[in-house]
């Protein structure tokens, strides 16, 4: 118990002192996470909207598949990306394994189905409301998707938030494709796993506290933005 208390005290000292190693790990974590979520949104938002609006053979199967992929095991994604990017893999020539880019790819693969599935649900509901209006105006399919995405923008923050949560907390995939290399690919979650295994509880705890605080701050910020928008009655 005394060790635990000491670890906490040391963790707070590291945070308060803006420890350089700690800051580097946080910086890389945020870069990887936000890049992955950005890519996932760029793919998942239009994909989800198309699934909501489109009527084509195999749509139902695709909807089920995207929903099922929300539960993709990170280690399996990590392994698949590892095999793709390893020297013997089809993309080995790109030399991306054990780089932040490989971690972004793995996280984007994990987050895209979450964004797409949640987007589909939000857009499908809104489409039910707008469908007759947009058809009566003669809106094209692309115009319909654009209108729905724009008008659902604040609701879609929830989809982005869910993706962000998954990416920020993810450890298995980034460990496999990033290798947890100090000053290169070490992020908060992999560092916590490593430091804990080494018995270095202070750094692990410091990172853990920051991870939780960041998650709360980002969620609170985005939810606040959404509420403001709702108060303005755009939602």
């Amino acid at each position: 118990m005394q060790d635990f208390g000491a670890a906490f005290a040391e963790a707070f000292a590291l945070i308060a002192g803006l420890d350089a190693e700690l800051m580097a790990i946080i910086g890389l974590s945020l870069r990887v996470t936000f890049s992955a979520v950005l890519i996932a949104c760029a793919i998942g938002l239009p994909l989800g909207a198309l699934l909501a609006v489109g009527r084509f053979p195999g749509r139902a199967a695709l909807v089920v598949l995207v929903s099922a992929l929300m539960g993709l095991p990170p280690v399996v994604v990590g392994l698949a990306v590892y095999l793709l990017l390893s020297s013997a893999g089809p993309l080995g020539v790109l030399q991306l394994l054990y780089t932040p880019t490989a971690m972004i790819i793995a996280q984007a693969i994990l987050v895209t189905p979450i964004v797409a599935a949640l987007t589909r649900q939000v857009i499908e509901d809104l489409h039910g409301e707008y469908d007759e209006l947009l058809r009566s105006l003669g809106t094209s399919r692309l115009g319909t998707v654009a209108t729905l995405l724009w008008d659902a923008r604040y609701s879609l923050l929830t989809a982005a938030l869910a993706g962000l949560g998954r990416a920020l907390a993810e450890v298995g995939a980034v460990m496999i494709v990033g290798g947890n290399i100090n000053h290169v690919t070490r992020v908060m979650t992999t560092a916590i796993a490593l430091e804990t295994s080494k018995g270095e509880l202070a750094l692990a705890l410091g990172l853990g506290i920051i991870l939780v605080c960041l998650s709360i701050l980002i969620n609170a910020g985005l939810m606040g933005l959404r509420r403001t928008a709702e108060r303005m009655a755009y939602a």
Partner: protein
Amino acid sequence: MPEVLAIDFGDEKASPPAILLDDVVLERGGKAVIDRLSLPLGPKGVTAFMGPNGAGKSLTLRLIAGLIAPTAGRIRFAEGVPLPQQIALVFQKPVLLRRSVRANLDHALKTFGTPRRERPARLADLLALGQLEPLAERPARVLSGGEQQRVAMVRALAANPKYLLLDEPTASLDPQATAAIETLVARAVAAGVRVILVTHDRGQAGRLADDICFLHKGRLLEAAPAARFFQAPKTAEAKAYLAGDLLL
């Protein structure tokens, strides 16, 4: 089963129809909800569809708008299939985008392909038409029901449509808001827009409509000039409807 009376809009409707519903059938769950509806609609004026709930009035409007396809029969327009901007539909409950009034109107203009340089002037005209200038920057969905319906009406008129289809546009509005909508309808008619209106409001039908089409259980039972329909309805169903009786 009541008899379907001959369509008699009077001599002024002798001109070739602008819209012809030709033996139109719409089935839902194996049941005809629109049953062999044949009706010529002339090129001018206001036609009101009346009848009890479930008569098929709104479905007929949606069939004319092309939002649903008939199970059998055809709907023909004199000039061929109209462009979406030539046929405007206003719903009972206005559907407005989650944007400002101005952005709602601008969205319609963009969708209709109005050139960017022409849009500001057109927007100003539309806002003036609906007396919406003070509300232009307000989110459309926080406006009162009457104001929202005015936005929907003005949006429907944005592309100078040839046909304006109104599905109970004042069903839940107060008299003042109703008057504002009826003024817009009258202005559209004066500008040559062909209006087809669904209404339960006998007074409104009397104020606006030239002709009445009375539907019951998906069938057209009467089609006559408004004055004659109200003075001397020919079917027992229409008489009962106008007397305020429940039609079962």
